[in-house]
Each structure stands twice: as C-alpha cells, then as structure tokens.
C-alpha cells in the first residue's frame, strides 16, 4: 500500500494551516467525493513562493501529497512551482497505490488555483496562460 515516505508525510504533515493575509488561495475537490485541499501562498520578490500552507480533508494519500507538494515548491518561482505536476509529487513520495492516484491530483491542482488567484488579485490575468501553461491538466474551477 503506502510507502514509508507517504506514511511519514501523512503522520507528520509539513506546512499545515492557512497563511493569514495570503497572497493567493486555491481550493479544489468536493466533500461529497471525500477530498478537499486548500492551499495558500505568500509570494515575494521575483515571483518566488516564500511560504505555502495547506489544509486537507481526505485520505492518507491526499494529506501526504499536499504535504510533499508544499515542501517541493517553497522557494520556487511561480513558473517553476506551476511546473510541479501531480505525477511528480507522487513520484517524490516513492509512488502511490493505483487506486489512490486520483487523490494525488488535488495538491498540485490546488496550488495552481492559488497561483491563478494571486495573478488575478494582482491584475496579471494576461500572464495566467503563460505561467500555468506547462502542466497538461487544466486546474479545476476553484473557490475561496
């Protein structure tokens, strides 16, 4: 089932919580489906993500991928962070059980929603397509 790394991230999740006065917030998933992830980011000089926090309602894989993602993107530029795919997060965790792959879609999607939110808030709609271009999968509609 779960790798030791998944269990470690699940048991001691990194960066849990919500950034007060966040620069961008994204939430994806649906409680009816059993998983919701909310990611808030702080963006500093040169579009660098200086802080990131998550809240997740979901299974072990959903929590672990959220935690892993936050570790992977802090210090990265928005462009680089948007490049981190769900698959990359699952790989960084040493793999997920096949039936859990869908849960791993939440974290990266929530981050992209947060980036999009940041760009919208800062009047940079024009850049959304370019910055979020690389990941093959378009983020799901977000709300915050």
């Amino acid at each position, binding site marked *: 089932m779960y790798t030791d790394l998944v*269990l470690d991230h699940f*048991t001691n999740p990194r960066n849990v919580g919500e950034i007060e006065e966040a620069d961008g917030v994204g939430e994806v998933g649906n*409680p009816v489906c059993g*998983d919701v992830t909310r990611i808030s980011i702080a963006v500093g000089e040169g579009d660098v993500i200086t802080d990131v926090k998550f809240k997740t*309602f979901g*299974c072990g894989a959903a929590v672990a991928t959220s935690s892993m993602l936050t570790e992977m993107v802090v210090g990265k530029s928005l462009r680089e962070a948007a490049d981190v795919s769900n698959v990359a997060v699952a790989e960084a965790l040493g793999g997920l059980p096949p*039936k859990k792959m869908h849960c791993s879609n939440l974290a990266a999607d929530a981050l992209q929603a947060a980036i999009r939110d940041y760009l919208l808030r800062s009047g940079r709609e024009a850049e959304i397509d370019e910055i979020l271009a690389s990941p093959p999968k378009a983020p799901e509609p977000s709300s915050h």
Partner: protein
Amino acid sequence: MKPVYFDHAATTPVDPRVFEAMTPFFCERFGNPSEPHRLGREARSAVDQARARVAALLGAGENEIVFTAGGTEADNLALFGSLARLQPGHLVVSAVEHPAVMEAARALNGRGWDVDYVPVDGDGVVDREAYRAAFRDDTRLVSVMTANNVVGTVQPVAELARIAHQKGALFHTDAVQAVGSLPVDVDELGVDMLSLSGHKLHGPKGVGALYVRRGTRLQPLLHGGGQERRLRSGTENVPGIVGLGVAMTLACEAMPEVRPRLERLRDRLVAGVLARVPEVTLLGHPTDRLPGNAAFAVRYVEGESLLLRLDARGFTVSSGSACAAGSDEPSPVVQALGVRPEDAHGSLRVSLGRENTEEEVDAFLDALPPIVDELRRMSPLYAKR
C-alpha cells in the same frame, strides 16, 4: 502499550487452540479425503467431524452443510446456485448487503434477473413495508444478512424469512458477522440457506460454509471431482475445515460469557466517544446490534486518515468495510442509513473481540479526541462549518 486490535469485523486472529487442532493436518495427517486408504479415511473423518460440529451448532443436519473457501463463496453459491436452473425472474436483497451478495446480485442482474434493493431505516433495519411491497409473482429468492458488517445492525431475519416463504420465495441470509457472536439456529430463523466464514470467528481465512436446507436444489459453482455431495468440487481444505469446526465450537461455548462482556465494553466505548468527541453520531441500531460493533460518523474528518492516525498510535480500527476496490467511495451501507456522503466519508468502525479489555477501551477513549481534533484543524471543511 502493545497494539490494540479493534478490527474484529474485518478479520480475527486464529485462536491458538484452533491452530493447535489444525496443525497435525498439514504435515502428518495430510491425506486426501477422497482416497480410501488409511490416511485418506483419517482426513475424511476429520472433515466429517467438523461438519457434524458446524451442523449441530446451527441446529442443522450434517448433510445440510457445504464447506466452501469462505463467506464470499458461500454467498455466491447461494445466489447463483439456487437460481441457476431457473428462468430469470426477480430477486430481492437489502440495500446494506455485503459486496459478496451485492455484486452477485448485480451479476445476476446482468444475466436478466430483476433485482430490488430494499431500503433500510436510519438504524439500518430493513423497512418492512418496502420489503413486503417488493415481492412479485416471480420473486424466487430473498437475501438479507443476519447482521451488518459495517454498522452492526441485526435484522429481523425470522420475520423476513416467514414473509418470503408466504410469497413463495427462498430465503438466504449472510450470517458471516453473526455466527459465533450471536446465537444462530437455522430453524428458529427459518432460512433456506445461510453463509458463514471461518476468519470472522477466530478460525482460519479461506474456509466457510453454506447451510442448505434439505430439499433446496442447488447447482454447483465449482465443477470437478464431486466433493461436498457434488455441490463444491475441489480437494477439501482439511486443516481449514477442522479449524472452522473447532473455532465455531469455541465461539459458541464462550458466547454466554463473551457476549454480555462485549456488550458492556461496546456500550462503554460508545458512551465515551459520544461524550468526548463533538459532532459524532452512532451508526446502526442503538441496541439491536452485534455485541462488539461500535460504528460512528465523525464529521469533518476523512475515515482513512482517522484510521491511519489511530493505527500510528497503536489502535487498529477500520473506516468501514474492508474490500479491495473502490474503498475511497463513502460506504454505501452508511449512505443507505441516510447519512450525507460528506459525513459518510468520516465513518469509523471499532469492532471488539473476546480478547479486548476495559483498559484498552479506556486508552482508546483517551487517544481519540486529540486525533480527531488534529485532523479537524487540518480540514478546510471544519473552519467553514
């Protein structure tokens, strides 16, 4: 503290006395019961003795017991076997059956059988009116479980079987969770077929039995050497069958002592959880439930997360039923009770067994609240409630 096992509804440890009884049949008394030589006859008589035990404990006759490879096979044999000869007609099952019955019913549906899934009330008890109303002229078989594996609710099987017989249908009950925990007598229940499984009653995995009332015609699922009165071919799992016989005997002997003790432990656990954790509901019937089953919906928390955190703290529980596929769906059983899907995701099943103690229950009651708290603080739903 050593890990506390609270997942007896998923499976149980083999009782050491059961293991001891099985042991000689692996390496020494290993004969094939179909062979007429001494080793074969020895194996045959061990199988017959187990059959006599299982039969007696159910109030059945010896040639009404068919050994299978488990509860799933018993359920499948009951449904497919009793309907195989017939023109497709109508089948009635409850909405809270185990997948072994549910999926067999679905497969029959694919072969032309109409299936009605009778709803249950908020406690998980089959709705009598809907049940009566479900029957048709061509209703051939009804399958309602004796006790539910997720929420523990015990069904009024005797009453439901009587109605089915009045309507001319056969009645099967999946008693996998009940046998060994509650008294089960095939004549008191009035059922035509009844499934049970070894590993739920401190016996081995991979062995079970189907009770088939004399006169009930059945087609086999497994064809071959003609074992089990041609109803289930394949070399008999002799150690497994011996283990099942001994395990059932021990469970039934201990029942008068174990059952009230488990009920007290369970009630202590239920009261403690409801008192200490806010926004938690008990699932299933408050009193007509399996002695060891305590099931809850914990809002704003996802079940697997809760299970894994409790596991990390030494408490082995379940977030519903154990099955290999689709376990990220909220339990259909919990939803059938009318619980909203988002709350059904937070289902927690604590199933006690005869080796559990009050200390273990109290330790659990101390461990649970901070874990729920932690998960809720992590949940984006909780802040918004």
